[in-house]
Every structure is written in structure tokens, then in C-alpha cells.
């Protein structure tokens, strides 16, 4: 059976400037990525990757971004991600970098990976807590995110990372 196969690239926006978080929106990230692909791979690469390119999911608090592209051109996309140096929105630009966390064939596999990754990140955060106050805050937010009984599906709700 012939069908169009997609690849979902999970990345994380890393920035030293805390104001960069307000800049993380789907249009800004999409434009930055298209611009980087155009610079690195030219008109041909830009056209190739734009066929089925969207920003599927975005989380400004954790800086998680999920991108979709065709299976034939995901290598062009992944090789252009390190060339993104800044995000621009509303006439403000902040320097940042994109780390690739995972490349999956479906959104479900990326979600499974993200859940495990976030769990590990929370444990690391707890370990690296500087003060007792922070430690108590992190523990409280860990214990407070749990499923309520009314949810019909027992799915894995994503643990949204702790607040800033």
C-alpha cells in the first residue's frame, strides 16, 4: 500500500535569555526554520521540505517543539536545525538554539518519548535544587499533577514540566 509517510522531529528550544519564552510561537518558529533551510539547502531544499511541513505542537513553558515533515526530506530539515540562531516575533529577536531530542514516525511515539524525557528531567531538577524552598516547590508540583478519577481514558497525560 502506498501512502505518504511523515517524520515527526521533537526538539527543545534552549536559550539563556528568559524572555525568549514569550517568543516561542508556532509562526515564529516555523519562519525561523524555513529561513534556516533556505540558507543551508537553497531553493530546492526549501521547496522539498515545505511540502508537508508544520509545527504540530508547541509548549512555551518547557520549550518543546514538535515538527512534521515528509520522510524523504527529514534529513534536510534535521541538518538545518543547528543553523537557527535566533527567534523573531513582534519585532523582537532573542538568541536561542534548537536541540533535537527525538525523531519518530508518529506523534504517539514522540509523545511516549517526551513523557519519559520529562520524567527524567523532573528527577534531575529535583536533584539540582539549590535550596530547600525550591525542593519543596518542585515536590509539591510533582505530587499535584495526577489524573483525576473522572477521566475515561487512562492515557498517559503529559507531565508538563514544572513552572518557570
Amino acid at each position, binding site marked *: 500500500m502506498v501512502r505518504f509517510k511523515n517524520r515527526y522531529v521533537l526538539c527543545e528550544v534552549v536559550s539563556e535569555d528568559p524572555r525568549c519564552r514569550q517568543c516561542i510561537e508556532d509562526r515564529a518558529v516555523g519562519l525561523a526554520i524555513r529561513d534556516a533551510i533556505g*540558507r543551508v*539547502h*537553497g531553493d530546492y531544499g526549501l521547496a522539498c521540505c515545505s511540502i508537508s511541513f508544520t509545527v504540530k505542537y508547541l509548549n512555551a513553558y518547557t520549550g518543546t517543539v514538535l515538527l512534521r515533515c515528509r520522510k524523504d526530506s527529514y534529513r534536510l530539515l534535521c541538518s538545518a536545525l543547528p543553523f537557527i540562531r535566533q527567534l523573531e516575533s513582534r519585532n523582537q529577536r532573542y538568541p536561542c538554539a534548537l536541540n533535537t531530542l527525538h525523531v519518530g514516525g508518529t506523534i504517539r511515539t514522540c509523545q511516549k518519548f517526551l513523557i519519559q524525557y520529562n520524567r527524567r528531567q523532573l528527577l534531575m531538577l529535583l536533584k539540582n535544587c539549590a535550596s530547600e524552598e525550591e525542593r519543596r516547590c518542585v515536590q509539591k508540583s510533582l505530587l499535584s499533577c495526577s489524573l483525576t478519577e473522572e477521566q475515561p481514558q487512562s492515557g498517559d497525560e503529559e507531565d508538563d514540566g514544572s513552572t518557570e
Partner: protein
Amino acid sequence: RPGGCMARAEPPAASFERRVLRSAAEHHYLRVRLELPDGVARPTVAQFKQLVVSALRELHGEVGAALPVDVLTYEEKTLSAILRVISSGLVKLWSALTLLGFYQNRRCAFRVLQTSPFLLALAGNSRELVL
């Protein structure tokens, strides 16, 4: 076959070996000619190479511009040159030359006259044969 047959002198069976090499050449060579309108200053060899690299950069980006392309010969009078490119980059180079439209804001075109994985094959061109 033992005995029985009519006497026939058969030479000893020669053993031969056939080797087929597909795309084994490292480089491909292209003879190209640049067509420019009259009145445009002819590019020097450095400007010619800059033109080729900028065509690659436009179509294939920084990765394309980094493709190792060499200008082996260049004749300023006829604007024809022999380019050498690594075999895996032939498609990128040829497509970039095809889609180049402008030189110093004037219309131009690249014509590819001959291409071959062997440089010696560019020496003779049966199209220019005068019978």
C-alpha cells in the same frame, strides 16, 4: 565429451573474466559555454567561478556552494570552460547551471556541450564534425 566425436581441434578453453563498474569514476567533466548578450563585459576566470558557485548557492544553499567544483580551462573569447565536479554532485551542478538566469542583471544562459566521466572523451565532439 570423451571420444566418439569427430576429431575437432578445440583450442583450450580460454578463461576470461568480465568486470562491470557502475559509476566508478570519481569525477565528472562538463564542457559548458556561457551565452551573454552583446555589450556585457566578459567575465574573467575568477568571476566565472564565482558565477558557478553563486548559481549553486541559489539553488542548493550553503551545502551546494561547498561542492568541490574546479574550472579546468576557460577561454574568455568564446566563454567556454571545462568544469570538473565530484560524481555525486553532478546533478546539483547541472541543475544549478540550468536554472541560472542572470549575470550582473543581464540575461544569460549556460549551455552544456559535452559531459563525460573521462576527460579524454571531451577532446572529440562528433556534433562539431565537419563532413
